[in-house]
């Protein structure tokens, strides 16, 4: 089969690899019909997530059709159209029972590695480095999925692949980001980063009762899309974000602030340069936490900072004084995708959310290197790429892959 393979920093390629097989009786093989590139895949591309190995198949947003099931799979049948949440739940441990599926005790085959980095091991994730299990990802024609009964969700009739694809990650991630804002009626929410997760975060904040949402980004097309979701916008390259947020909220500050940016935030000035230099060493600092710093500073007293953005290791100069003296709450986490699926599917079915609106590019799997390139550099107005693993490249002349950069 064809699969997108990590080949080192800034290099992905499409390779022919062996088809996946059932390795354990609770596995199922899914023929992937749609997959997407997530912002957090860029952290893998850029080499900031430790324990990637050359040849790893990437991709954690994917859905498709079940083509084979292991002998102990009961609920899922061959022929089912399914979505595959990116965190892997065993379905049995205390965390899974509590709906905290991204913290599953049992699904990471490499817990020792995660415990060295983080103290305890969270769930295994598809296509997301060996620290989260080393599972092969879904930017491929087929994928092995594990604990099928706990992890494969049947797509309701009448919904298209594109309508449900983002239920595997970015829609629930934006939703949990908004839920973690602890929104109360009348609240003003600020969202750093108007990429796919930020956009779903904006939409979700309104669904959860926010009165106003303010989106902060620097790309006009993303700010424009945020406005179509009802957000007010700030371009951080043109404005002083802190001053403007304060002014827009009558001097109070936003009631909650979401960091939908994560570990590769852009920053100007000396601190931004220092972060970039330190992060490049992979040792002095693994994360550039500029959005998190800004979120903590901007949030009103007693407010909540919600962090759906991905962080990996160590970050410098977090304003803990502001965090403590203002009495802030921070809520974080990889998304417990499973717990949100029923509710979010309902929004889609009732037409209250149209997830396909954020798709700007539809490409073939063969075009993945190009897709990564335009998504990373926001070329060509790219906000979200969906890849079709089965589209014939001849129907759709592949765009030549760019030369590796940096």
């Amino acid at each position: 089969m064809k699969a997108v393979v990590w080949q080192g920093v800034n290099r992905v390629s499409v390779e022919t690899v062996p088809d996946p097989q059932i390795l354990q009786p609770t596995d199922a093989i899914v023929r992937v019909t749609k997959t997407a590139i997530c912002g957090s895949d860029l952290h893998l591309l850029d080499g900031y997530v430790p324990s990637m190995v050359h040849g790893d198949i990437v991709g954690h947003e994917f859905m498709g059709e079940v083509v084979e099931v292991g002998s102990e799979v009961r609920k899922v049948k061959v022929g089912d159209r399914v979505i595959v949440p990116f965190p892997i739940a065993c379905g049995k441990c205390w965390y899974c029972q509590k709906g905290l599926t991204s913290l599953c005790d049992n699904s990471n085959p490499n817990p020792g590695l995660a415990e060295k980095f983080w103290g305890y091991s969270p769930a295994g994730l598809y296509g997301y480095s060996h620290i989260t299990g080393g599972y092969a990802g879904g930017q491929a024609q087929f994928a092995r999925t594990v604990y099928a009964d706990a992890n494969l969700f049947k797509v309701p009739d009448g919904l298209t692949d594109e309508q449900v694809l983002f239920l595997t990650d970015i829609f629930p991630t934006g939703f949990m980001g908004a839920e973690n804002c602890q929104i109360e009626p009348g609240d003003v929410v600020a969202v750093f980063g108007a990429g796919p997760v930020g956009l779903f975060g904006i939409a979700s904040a309104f669904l959860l009762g926010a009165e106003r949402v303010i989106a902060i980004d620097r790309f006009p097309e993303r700010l424009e899309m945020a406005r179509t979701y009802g957000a007010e916008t700030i371009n951080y390259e043109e404005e002083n974000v802190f001053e403007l947020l304060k002014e827009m909220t009558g001097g109070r500050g936003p009631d909650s602030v979401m960091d939908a940016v994560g570990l590769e935030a852009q920053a100007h000035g000396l601190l931004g340069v220092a972060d970039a230099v330190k992060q490049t060493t992979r040792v002095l600092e693994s994360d550039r936490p500029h959005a998190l710093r800004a979120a903590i500073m901007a949030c009103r007293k007693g407010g909540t900072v919600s962090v759906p953005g991905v962080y990996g290791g160590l970050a410098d100069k977090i304003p803990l004084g502001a965090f403590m003296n203002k009495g802030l709450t921070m809520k974080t986490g990889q998304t417990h995708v499973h717990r949100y699926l029923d509710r979010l599917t309902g929004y889609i079915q009732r037409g209250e959310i149209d997830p396909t609106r954020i798709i700007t590019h539809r490409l073939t799997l063969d075009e993945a290197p190009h897709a990564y390139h335009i998504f990373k550099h926001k070329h060509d107005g790219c906000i979200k790429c969906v890849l079709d693993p089965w589209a014939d490249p001849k129907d759709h002349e592949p765009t030549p892959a760019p030369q590796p950069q940096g």
Partner: protein
Amino acid sequence: MTRKDYEERPQSGRNSSPAERVLFGSIGAGLIALSLGQRGQVGTLLATGGALLVAGAAMGQGLGETVTGVRRTEDDQIKVEKAITVGMGADELYTFWRNFENLPRFMDHLESVKVQDGDGQRSHWVAKAPAGTSVEWDAEITADEPGRRIAWRSLEGATVPNEGAVEFRPAPGDRGTEIHVSLTYRPPGGTLGATVARLLGEDPNVQIEHDLRRLKRLLEVGHIPTTEGQSSGRKGALKAEARMYDNRRTS
């Protein structure tokens, strides 16, 4: 393992054996002697290394054990204590463990345990040892409190004299049962032998932790997750790179 048992076998403040202190002290002194004939950075490095080793030996803090974290008791035995919480009742867990023949299902270094007589007090253990060999011993149960605690110890003649205890404590809320395991053993070559074994990858501390995790996964889910045999774009030497990270090395 109760607090009382623990106190009966106090941990030593020092973590290296006398033999080790002599060995590393001598190496340190040798390095300092070597450094006298060297100039520049090489001399400084040798002298610094030598001084560290001598200081470590003098304080009884062996470098090897400081790095590997070996804990020893005052009578030069190795002690390992680990705990895990499993989402099941204490009675079920006790029953599973009390049948010692189940132990090799999750204890990777055990080849087999055979219960020898009718009431299951005595058992014969076979464990894997380095270089494809094995060690065997007989053990007897020394304490047995259904649903709460089992303790055992090896009988006279064991190559590696050892004793162990497992306690099942109800976890708060609906979290299941805490399993607390304590093992004490005297390895061939004393703590120095244990340090060498640990540096070669035979680390009981890590082994017990992984064994308990395997037990949890076996009982909660039915099997241990794996990625062995999955597809990848790896060729040749890259396969070894992936194995550095992959399961069965770290779980």
